[in-house]
């Protein structure tokens, strides 16, 4: 599901994405654990999109949707392009993919790490470049994207807000 946001803070809940071209908007993923929050940002066009991705890929029998990286990443790109983003100016920022618990039944890689890997692979297919990321570890995170200037911040439980991505002063566009 893609919601077009206008004004103030908009949440992308699990499996959802939000996009906005309104400089007054902030897009947020609250309480990311093993999920990935993926932001695609065109600062020149004042367009940003945020997807809350839960799993690497749809199972063979299922229909891919916003939960899955293989569907969510191209769908988010399409949505920000529709709002006027230019493909060559898009910056990608990833947050999440933590391993808070060990399930250890299959001895395989944890779902958080597999999610991060899948999002990277999808970005590479679309020739989009991750500019910043805060992934892995054992703590949950909340991320926020300010549409006005593409600034991305995140916060871990009990921690303080960390700036992950910001606009170089020379590139800031007057409103």
């Amino acid at each position, binding site marked *: 599901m893609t919601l077009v946001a206008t004004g103030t803070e908009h949440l992308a809940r699990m499996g959802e994405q939000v996009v906005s071209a309104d400089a007054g908007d902030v897009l947020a993923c609250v309480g990311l*654990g093993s999920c990935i929050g993926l932001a695609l940002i065109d600062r020149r066009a004042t367009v940003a999109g945020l997807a809350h991705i839960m799993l690497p890929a749809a199972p063979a029998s299922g229909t891919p949707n916003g939960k899955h990286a293989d569907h969510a990443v191209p769908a988010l790109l399409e949505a920000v392009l529709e709002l006027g983003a230019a493909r060559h100016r898009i910056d990608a920022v990833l947050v999440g993919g933590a391993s808070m618990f060990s399930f250890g039944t299959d001895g395989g890689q944890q779902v958080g790490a597999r999610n991060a890997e899948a999002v990277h692979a999808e970005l590479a297919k679309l020739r989009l470049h991750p500019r910043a990321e805060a992934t892995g570890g054992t703590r949950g995170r909340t991320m926020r994207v300010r549409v006005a200037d593409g600034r991305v911040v995140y916060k871990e439980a009990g921690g303080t807000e960390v700036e992950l991505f910001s606009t170089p002063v020379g590139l800031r566009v007057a409103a």
Partner: protein
Amino acid sequence: MTTYSDLQLDALRELANIGSGQAAASLSSLLGKPTDISVPTAAALPLADAVAVAGQPDEERHGILVPIIGDMQAAVVLLVPDEDAQTLCSVYGLDPHSDDGRSMLQEVGNILGTSYINVLAQMTGMALEPAPPQVVHDMLGAILASVLMGRGEDLEVALVLDSDLTVEGEECSMSFLLLPESGGVEDLLARLGL
């Protein structure tokens, strides 16, 4: 999308009622104080709503995960607000943020999870056993999403059996959730003849 009939949800609610009743009795004997349970809720919810059942996604909780293995894969999750964890641990003079405090919470998870699961096993004839509990202090949304997605299963809806436990005279309460994997719920219902 998986849905359950009212009759099936009633049966699951009754299982949760008996299970959490047993868990409350165990908590009473651990703490030496009477413990009450609320009437449990049983609901099959889209994942985003399943997280919302327990509170706002950015509220911090002590999360105690007790993985259940055997004939059904499931997770028991206890969510304890910090002040309630302080109360719980203070019975033994411990701080929930210390190693000993975390061990205490782990033990609470062990005792409650085990008594709950034993009831389920007895009633359904399933072989079920708890794996060692894991304790975190983190955001509610991150805890529940990580548990629900932990095995990488592609869930549409989560079955949430939620009870509140309250320790009398201590203003201490916690949420108690049973989150079975989707195949496990069908097995559970089949065992009950539903």
